């Protein structure tokens, strides 16, 4: 028997931009449970509306940042101790943390990405936007990554994410085979949004995954992925 996905689509569409109220969230969970974990249409709707939300975030116009933000971000990129928020020591990783949903700054190695992507928050139409799938259906929020295969630069965007304790961050990994490469650490803002940029290159056969890590960021995942997606460029 063909099951209707009309109500599920309504709820997934609104959830992808963080608009569900608790009753609707419970309703969606019930409907999804009734369709089962193998519901391909449910999965397709989640992925496609996740991509819509991701592109919305990346389509923002830049806005002014608070005084001192640029200096602090450059300090992070150079491995200097931040006043707050995550940082990774060393030159290879240049994490950018989000402090305003509409802001993207490009520093150090990330300049490569700026050139590739045009230096703004707008992801070009030819970029691949991938919605990472929650590994636990009860997980709140959506996570999306955008990149151009074969070129350096991955934009990470999330919305409606659970807050984390001060000593933890979300960390993005690019996993090729059995080898995870750290990409960027982010901490959700008060509204549950994150935005980050990494200079990793995605070629087309990797898995992108997000784990919860200590605020110092990890060189290898220390917890299981909570969002993940297989990159396919076919």
């Amino acid at each position, binding site marked *: 028997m063909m099951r209707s996905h009309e109500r599920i689509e*309504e709820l997934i*569409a609104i959830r992808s931009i*963080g608009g569900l109220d608790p009753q609707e969230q419970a309703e969606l969970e019930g409907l999804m449970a009734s369709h089962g974990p193998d519901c391909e249409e449910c999965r397709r709707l989640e992925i*496609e*509306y996740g991509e819509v939300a991701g592109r*919305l975030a990346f389509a923002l116009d830049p806005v002014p940042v608070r005084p001192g933000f640029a200096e602090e971000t450059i300090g992070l990129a150079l491995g200097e101790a931040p006043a707050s928020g995550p940082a990774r020591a060393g030159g290879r990783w240049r994490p950018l943390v989000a402090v305003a949903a509409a802001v993207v700054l490009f520093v150090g190695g990330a300049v490569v990405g700026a050139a590739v992507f045009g230096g703004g928050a707008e992801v070009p*139409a030819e970029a*691949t936007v991938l919605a990472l799938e929650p590994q636990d259906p009860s997980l709140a929020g959506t996570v999306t990554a955008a990149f151009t295969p074969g070129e350096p630069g991955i934009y990470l965007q999330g919305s409606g994410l659970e807050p984390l304790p001060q000593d933890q961050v979300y960390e993005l990994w690019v996993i090729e085979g059995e080898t995870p490469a750290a990409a960027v650490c982010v901490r959700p803002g008060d509204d*549950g949004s994150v935005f980050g940029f990494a200079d990793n290159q995605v070629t087309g056969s990797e898995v992108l995954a997000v784990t919860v890590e200590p605020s110092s960021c990890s060189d290898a995942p220390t917890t299981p992925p909570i969002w993940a997606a297989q990159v396919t460029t076919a």
Partner: protein
Amino acid sequence: VIELMYFDGFSQSKISEELGLPLGTVKSRTLLGMKRLRAAIGGLPR
């Protein structure tokens, strides 16, 4: 409604209040907008 919901983090009820629209209209406009965006993005290269 999408802007208020996604970028400003307003609940559907708050948007209803702010815009003076019935809650059902907020829901239907959100869905319509998201469907249109999904259709538009569906035409982009993956």
